[in-house]
């Protein structure tokens, strides 16, 4: 084999024939085409005539070039050129198969797995032992090559899953590099093309082997950084290796609501050429924004392309109330001015009366100098604090007066106010005034127990007046901040799930200069971030153990952590995830932290160039392509041209005769197939005509449609299934559908079909954006899609089957409503037959549809119609029972596939009944659901 770049020749010795081309040239030149022969009766008269001049005869140059080209093409063709040859493995030593297997391998995991299996196949054929390593794992102490027959590895490769962290290149570089026996092995490394900070160490270590082949991915991975808040905006960054091309990445924003996770929004991050980081801002109403649980790049399922959120990005809502009347004219002495200024950056600020504010469900309530609370206000506030609210109160003249009264009460009742953390002493204290003894007091450094620990109190912040707490045994631990002389400045106590905090000074600059300082802003920021359930999103102390609550797998799916995971120290979470600390949600005593692969937006770093000795390939990108047939075809076309030219030269004109032309076309059609573009316009015109015809049929009749998956077998079954269902419908119900139709999501008009059956196959191409948009439009306008993953028999008990992932991929861009299992008594169970399960070819497997909406009493009929234009019909039904196979009948009306055990008569009948209900449901809308209520209505009328 001889290779030139990506081209190789299987029979290179035939290329020697190319050397004969000049000789051929000369030969052709010397033998011009024979002269034209003409039958002419007058020839006798010509006999004996002499030509007036003699000219030498040469073959025309273009004919020479043409013929030489034909010869060259034929020689090249027989030398069997191959594009991207899969070099046959040299040697017969062991094969070491290394997979990166980290998060960056997840998005094309199927391809990788197939490539790995292909390598195994090859090794098996050559009877070479294999050792298989995934390096996104903890590095074993003493790594040895584990040589086994290739077939024995198959299970391991098939079961392998990507890890949610980066491959441990450096560790494995040492371990693999030192593994004995590597020198004799040839290494195949399926890499993800990123550096992961190893700087080519692993490649260098592997280059020690008897041959290194590196297989790079076709599509470079894209990652997401942890979401962050900048200037009040929630930002998320997509990251890639810097490339020249610009790229748009769609980021799905998912939130956890009452009914499970759903998509809240889709963002677009645009990488300009050369850039590696692209930001996208989340623009959502606060309620939705605070529901966000994760971000994920659509169409790239990997841990790196998923970012979990924690409390740190939640934007809090703070309610502000002042005891004093607010006058616009006196802004700087306003009770709330400094609070507003301090909070506007970090939280949503609302103002109003206490009860009004509580209606808006704030995380924090700040009461500035509110002395007296009315009974209902007090009750509402107490309930709210108990439920987890954070109440921040500021002292002031009114509070002081209230405290005086409370002190009088307390004397008799000895009962403390739950809305104050400490009992207050009557009367305040003034320091540094004209009548006072001492100088104004500064703030003491915060101690470790205080949430303000770490902030520094500037010396110039002084307090001139304060309200004093009554001494008690727990005063010290309730104190979060104190003055130099030890009197408390901020006290706090927990009430139920919530917390009450008291600033012993006013919220304006009257009593102290604290509100004027930056410290005030920081203190408020800390307090606000503490608010809400679960506590702060900031990492606590380094040593505090953090327990994993939910962990991500390599595809970026978070699932509840198993119980036996050891907690990690909080300090560990500052570093990148690794086998000992996979990304996910971690909880400490107070903090609950999202631990993402990328804390900060940084460009992904491409891997160092492969070592010179390595063979570099790409996943799927390098399939062998034989070129011989193209060359032969090319030579044949040239030969045809040459034939015509020779005919023309010898004076034989070709008359265009319709039959002959048709014959010639027929003869040329194999050639035409080589250049499909030539005939494309005609074909398209034809298609339009067919389309019209189809559209007319579909519009004038009820037609069941199925999505073409590209898998012949599945499509055939879909069609047969819908045909079977159609005939069943015709015989049992008033619905008389005509022959089912195939629908191509990319090209066909969907609006003509009431119901589209969509079987899911793993190989199906993801619908383009336009197709997804049209599907969304279809669902919005009353269409129904029945998705069938056809794998109920493969699903683990209660879980999803293998096609669920394909389903997720296919419908990633679709706008599904919240889904739920089919509830008992749902309309679908009684549109025609009364059903309690929905078997297809397989039993089991649950059926999902749009979660029933809670009926709001306030909503009248018109509003309800606007809110739900689909007339109560779920736009999507998802199941796994492979219904089409149960329905499928062939042209003779015989069932095509066996169903269930024994003859499965009952199960098939039930499958058909489900089909009837399904079509009825799709066609009759809420009419049937009204019918369901008829007994109830009659009963009510009877009363």
């Amino acid at each position, binding site marked *: 084999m001889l290779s030139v770049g990506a081209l190789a020749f299987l029979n290179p010795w035939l290329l020697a024939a190319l050397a004969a081309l000049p000789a051929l040239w000369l030969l052709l030149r010397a033998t011009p085409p024979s*002269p*034209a*022969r*003409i*039958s*002419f*009766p*007058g*020839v*006798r*008269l*010509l*006999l004996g*005539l002499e*030509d*007036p*001049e*003699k*000219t030498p*005869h040469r073959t025309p140059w273009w004919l020479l070039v043409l013929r030489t080209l034909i010869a060259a093409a034929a020689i090249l063709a027989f030398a069997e050129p191959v594009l991207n040859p899969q070099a046959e493995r040299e040697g017969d030593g062991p094969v070491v198969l290394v997979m990166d297997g980290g998060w960056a391998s997840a998005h094309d995991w199927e391809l990788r797995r197939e490539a790995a299996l292909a390598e195994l196949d090859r090794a098996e054929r050559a009877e070479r032992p294999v050792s298989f390593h995934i390096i996104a794992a903890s590095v074993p102490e003493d790594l040895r090559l584990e040589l086994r027959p290739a077939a024995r590895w198959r299970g391991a490769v098939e079961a392998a899953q990507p890890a949610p962290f980066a491959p441990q290149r450096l560790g494995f570089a040492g371990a693999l590099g030192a593994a004995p026996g590597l020198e004799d092995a040839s290494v195949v490394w399926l890499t993800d093309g990123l550096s992961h900070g190893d700087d080519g160490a692993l490649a260098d270590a592997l280059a020690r082997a008897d041959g290194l082949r590196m297989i790079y991915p076709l599509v470079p991975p894209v990652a997401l950084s942890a979401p962050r808040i900048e200037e009040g905006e929630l930002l998320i960054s997509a990251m890639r290796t810097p490339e020249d091309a610009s790229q748009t990445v769609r980021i799905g924003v998912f939130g956890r609501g009452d009914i499970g996770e759903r998509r809240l929004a889709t963002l677009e991050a645009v990488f300009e050429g050369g850039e590696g980081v692209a930001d996208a801002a989340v623009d959502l109403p606060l309620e939705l924004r605070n529901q966000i649980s994760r971000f994920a790049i659509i169409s790239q399922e990997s841990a790196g392309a998923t970012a979990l959120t924690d409390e740190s990005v939640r934007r809090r809502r703070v309610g502000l109330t002042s005891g004093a009347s607010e006058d616009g004219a006196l802004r700087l002495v306003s009770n709330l001015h400094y609070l507003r200024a301090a909070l506007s950056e970090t939280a949503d600020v609302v103002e109003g009366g206490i009860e009004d504010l509580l209606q808006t469900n704030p995380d924090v309530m700040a009461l500035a100098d509110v002395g007296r609370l009315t009974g209902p206000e007090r009750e509402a506030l107490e309930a709210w604090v108990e439920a987890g609210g954070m109440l921040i109160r500021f002292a002031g003249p009114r509070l002081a007066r209230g405290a005086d009264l409370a002190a009088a009460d307390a004397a008799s009742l000895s009962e403390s106010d739950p809305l104050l953390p400490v009992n207050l002493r009557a009367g305040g204290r003034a320091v540094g005034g004209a009548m006072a003894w001492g100088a104004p007091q500064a703030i003491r450094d915060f101690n470790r127990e205080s949430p303000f620990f770490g902030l520094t109190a500037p010396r110039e912040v002084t307090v001139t007046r304060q309200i004093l707490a009554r001494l008690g045994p727990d005063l010290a631990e309730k104190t979060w901040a104190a003055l130099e002389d030890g009197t408390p400045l901020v006290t706090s106590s927990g009430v139920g799930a919530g917390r009450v905090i008291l600033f012993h000074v006013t919220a304006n600059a009257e009593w102290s200069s604290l509100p004027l300082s930056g410290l005030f802003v920081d203190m408020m920021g800390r307090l606000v971030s503490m608010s809400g359930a679960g506590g702060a999103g900031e990492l606590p102390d380094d040593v505090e153990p953090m327990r994993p609550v939910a962990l991500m797998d390599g595809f970026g799916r978070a699932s509840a952590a198993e119980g036996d995971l050891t907690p990690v120290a909080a300090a560990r979470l500052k570093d990148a995830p690794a086998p000992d600390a996979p990304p996910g949600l971690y909880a400490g005593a107070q903090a609950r932290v999202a631990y993402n692969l990328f804390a900060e937006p940084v460009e992904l770093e491409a891997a160092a160039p492969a070592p010179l000795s390595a063979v570099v390939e790409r996943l799927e990108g390098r399939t062998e392509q034989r070129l011989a047939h193209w060359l032969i075809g090319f030579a044949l076309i040239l030969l045809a041209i040459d034939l015509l030219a020779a005919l023309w030269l010898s*004076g034989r004109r070709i008359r265009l005769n319709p039959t002959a032309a048709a014959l010639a076309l027929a003869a040329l059609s194999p050639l035409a197939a080589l250049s499909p573009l030539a005939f494309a316009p005609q074909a398209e015109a034809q298609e339009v005509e067919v389309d019209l015809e189809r559209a007319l049929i579909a519009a004038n009749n009820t037609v069941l449609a199925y999505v073409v998956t590209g898998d012949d077998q599945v499509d055939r079954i879909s069609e047969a299934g819908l045909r079977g269902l159609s005939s069943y419908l015709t015989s049992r119900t008033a619905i008389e559908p005509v022959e089912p139709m195939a629908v191509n999501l990319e090209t066909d008009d969907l609006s003509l079909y009431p119901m589209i059956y969509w079987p899911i196959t793993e190989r199906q191409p993801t619908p383009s954006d336009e197709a997804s948009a049209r599907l969304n439009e279809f669902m919005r306008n009353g269409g129904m899609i029945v998705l069938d993953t056809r794998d109920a028999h493969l699903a683990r008990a209660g879980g999803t089957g293998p096609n669920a992932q394909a389903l997720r991929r296919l419908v990633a861009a679709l706008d599904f409503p919240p889904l739920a299992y089919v509830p008992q008594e749902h309309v679908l169970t009684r549109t025609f037959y009364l059903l309690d399960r929905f078997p297809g070819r397989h039993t089991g497997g649950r059926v999902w549809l749009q979660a029933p909406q809670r009926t709001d009493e306030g909503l009248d009929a018109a509003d309800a119609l606007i809110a739900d234009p689909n007339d109560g019909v779920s736009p999507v039904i998802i199941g796994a029972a492979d219904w089409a196979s149960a329905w499928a009948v062939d042209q003779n009306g015989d069932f095509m596939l066996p169903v269930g055990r024994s003859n499965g008569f009952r199960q098939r009948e039930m499958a058909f009944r489900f089909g009837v209900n399904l079509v009825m449901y799709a066609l009759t809308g809420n009419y049937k659901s009204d019918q369901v209520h008829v007994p109830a209505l009659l009963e009510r009328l009877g009363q």
Partner: protein
Amino acid sequence: MADRSTDTTAKRVERVGAGWLRRDAERISGALPPLLAEAERLAASVAPGVHGRRQAGSGETFWQFRTAQPGDPHQSVDWRRSARSDQMYVREMEWEAAQTVSIWRDDALSMDFKSDRAARSKSDRAALLSLAIAVLLIRGGERVSLLGTDAERPGSGENQLQRMGAILTDTREKRPDFGAPPRADFARGGRAVFFSDFMGARDEIFPSLTHAAEAGVSGAYVQIVDRAEETFPFDGRLIFESMGRGVKFETDRARGLQKEYKDRLAERRRDLEQTARRCGWRCLIHRTDESPRKALLWLYAAIAGGLR
């Protein structure tokens, strides 16, 4: 070759027009060869202007009375007429004895030539003219024979026409490249018409022509040529072949030969005309792109005029 001729026949049938179906049917049944039909149509355009012999002879129609000469038999004296005067009169009938006209249509391969722009081959034209003149002659009561064929025995009437039509549309096998008039036993005093291109070898054609003259017949040569044979519109490197591939001539630049070819053609025609003049024949050059009527009129005048 046979294929081609049936092909042209079929085309001809088509070209005749709306009546093709009936004629085609008749052709198949053999009742009326299309050639005959076409020839009759062509003859019909000529016949009305031509009249009888205007000559005394044996016949049934009265011609004139003349005074009896010594030697006239008794029987020929018309007694009724003679009784009215002193002289004896003989009643003469118009001469109605049929003449024999021999027609030779060259059916050599060279006659099959048809250049790109010509509508018909020379052979077709020759057959058409042969049959048309035969129709005219037979209508005039003459006896016609087709030399070199089964219809060589002179005959008259519709039967002879049918036979000739069939022969003329048929193609015989083993035709030579070039044809020469046959040395048949001509009826002395008869007439003859030779249709050919006279492109064959000199020493085959001219002795035959002289032979016919020596046999005591007079008549006409019709040289039928294609337009391409007159203009020689060829150029480039070519091999000229006779129709049967028997004769070959290769040239590097055909156009250079045009003048010399034309000279030779003119010389051949001059020879033909000279021979004709010497033998008392007449000579016509007919090109296939000319109207056949012109040639027919000329021919009729030449033959019938001589017969008068």
